[in-house]
């Protein structure tokens, strides 16, 4: 069945052949309804096993037991059966949307089959491995067959940038700020759709967590699978190389006004004098991001909870030194294996307001949780959670 799904997808895409893959990241183990559980169990009954290293994206339950997921029966049992089926297929119990920060980093130039839009874009753009945006079911089918359709971003010619996204006109203090990356990612995704672009005007490497935030925002507001940043990402030593020596078809010159509007668009809440919760960690927080969170908290107790979503690769580190317990004592809710927009964790609330520093949470929280969103930096999120009222610091 797995090979038939791969072959049928290849035909749909017009791929002339299948190629071997080095690894997979599976986004199909999140419960959306019984159909996905039945599919995974059908694969298990057929005796299928993954043929390559396969990590798992988030599930619908926090199997580490840090947080309480309000998924009721019978959905809860079906979600657990689904997670169990993927384990039986031989997948690693990573349960994170940031597998690339949990030790799964395919080599530059290798072909892989990854699902989860932010993981795909990071894998292609920052690691330089080659994957398409594999949808649920095709990822596991490729993992079992060890093959993927040869098309799209597996082909060198399709990895060339065709447009330039120039941020050089933006003020330096904005570009150096944490929110620049999710805000620009959100704008980039909406402007480019599924095209490959190269970002120019970035003077220094903003670091892996910033690139993670940019890619996640771009892949949720658009259909971005690969971006380049001149002088930063591995396939773009400079803009000319990323463009393959060809003139850009389009050049988007980002103005301060465009960035301001993109930032405003991330918030959906009307003017409000309170917040009900803060959510951070989409994609899952790294250990370095927890360091920043602790520094900003400085031991203060929160009046509204900060939901901090991460993977068990980070949880192990936090638990080693008792850091999780210390954070929880201040009012932080640490969530592992899952996150607040994929499963019911936030209290049900009419007219709830959620503050976040994640472009991806901002995109999906209104539809998936019913909360209106206020977008701000991590520092603003922390100050707001301490006071219970929205706090925004002005830049520059």
């Amino acid at each position: 069945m797995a090979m038939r799904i791969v072959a049928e997808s290849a035909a749909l895409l017009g791929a002339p052949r299948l190629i071997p893959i080095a690894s997979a990241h599976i986004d199909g183990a999140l419960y959306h309804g019984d159909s996905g559980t039945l599919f995974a169990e059908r694969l298990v009954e057929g005796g299928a096993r993954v043929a390559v290293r396969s990590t798992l994206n988030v599930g619908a339950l926090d199997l580490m037991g840090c947080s309480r997921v309000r998924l009721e029966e019978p959905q809860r049992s079906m979600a657990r059966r689904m997670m169990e089926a993927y384990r039986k297929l031989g997948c690693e119990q990573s349960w994170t949307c940031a597998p690339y920060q949990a030790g799964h980093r395919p080599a530059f130039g290798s072909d892989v089959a990854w699902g989860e839009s932010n993981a795909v874009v990071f894998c292609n753009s920052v690691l330089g491995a080659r994957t398409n945006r594999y949808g649920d079911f095709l990822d596991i089918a490729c993992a079992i067959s060890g093959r993927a359709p040869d098309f799209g971003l597996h082909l060198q010619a399709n990895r060339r940038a065709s447009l330039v996204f120039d941020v050089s006109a933006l003020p330096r203090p904005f570009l150096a700020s944490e929110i620049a990356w999710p805000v620009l990612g959100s704008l980039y995704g909406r402007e480019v759709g599924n095209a490959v672009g190269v970002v120019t005007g970035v003077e220094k490497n903003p670091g892996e967590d910033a690139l993670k935030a940019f890619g996640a925002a771009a892949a949720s507001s658009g259909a971005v699978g690969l971006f380049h940043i001149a002088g930063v990402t591995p396939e773009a030593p400079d803009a000319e190389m990323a463009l393959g020596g060809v003139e850009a078809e389009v050049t988007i010159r980002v103005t301060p006004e465009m960035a301001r509007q993109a930032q405003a668009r991330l918030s959906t809440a009307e003017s409000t004098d309170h917040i009900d919760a803060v959510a951070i960690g989409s994609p899952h927080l790294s250990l370095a991001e927890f360091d920043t969170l602790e520094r900003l908290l400085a031991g203060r107790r929160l009046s509204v909870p900060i939901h901090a979503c991460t993977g068990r690769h980070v949880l192990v580190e936090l638990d080693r030194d008792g850091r999780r317990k210390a954070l929880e004592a201040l009012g932080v809710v640490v969530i592992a294996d899952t996150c607040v927009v994929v499963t019911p964790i936030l209290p049900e609330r009419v007219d709830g307001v959620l503050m976040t520093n994640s472009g991806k949470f901002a995109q999906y929280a209104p539809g998936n949780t019913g909360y209106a969103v206020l977008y701000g930096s991590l520092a603003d999120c922390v100050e707001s959670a301490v006071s219970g009222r929205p706090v925004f610091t002005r830049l520059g």
Partner: protein
Amino acid sequence: MGTRAEILVPGASGEGPALVLSAPISFWGGVDPKSGRIADVRHPQCGQSLSGKVLFLPGTIGSSSASSVLMELVHAGHAPVALVLHEPDAILLLGLIVAREMGWETPVAMKLSRDAFGFFTGKQVRVGGDGEVAILGTDSAA
């Protein structure tokens, strides 16, 4: 009037009111898998239901879980009657490919230039398993 579209994934024929989306959508996070209602508050057609409609999609964005949401809509009986796409979408259509593997009846998916979508707005549309897309009349509910 009618036209013949290229079949992307074979499926059952059927008829229903046309729902022509005016902006691309992410099925995951943008459509409620339990009901088929558009849940993305930033989408201009938020609140409308895809269920039972002939759905015209100018494009898709976002999550790689679109396939899961579409398969769940099929399994739970809330799927569109047919999907008309501007171009093949390897993520979304997987939901139909896998549902067929599971032995569930799926709607047909076909390809038609989005330039032609406007003709179908507000109309009752019949789609054939052979790719025929025909306007039956004005959608009385529209």
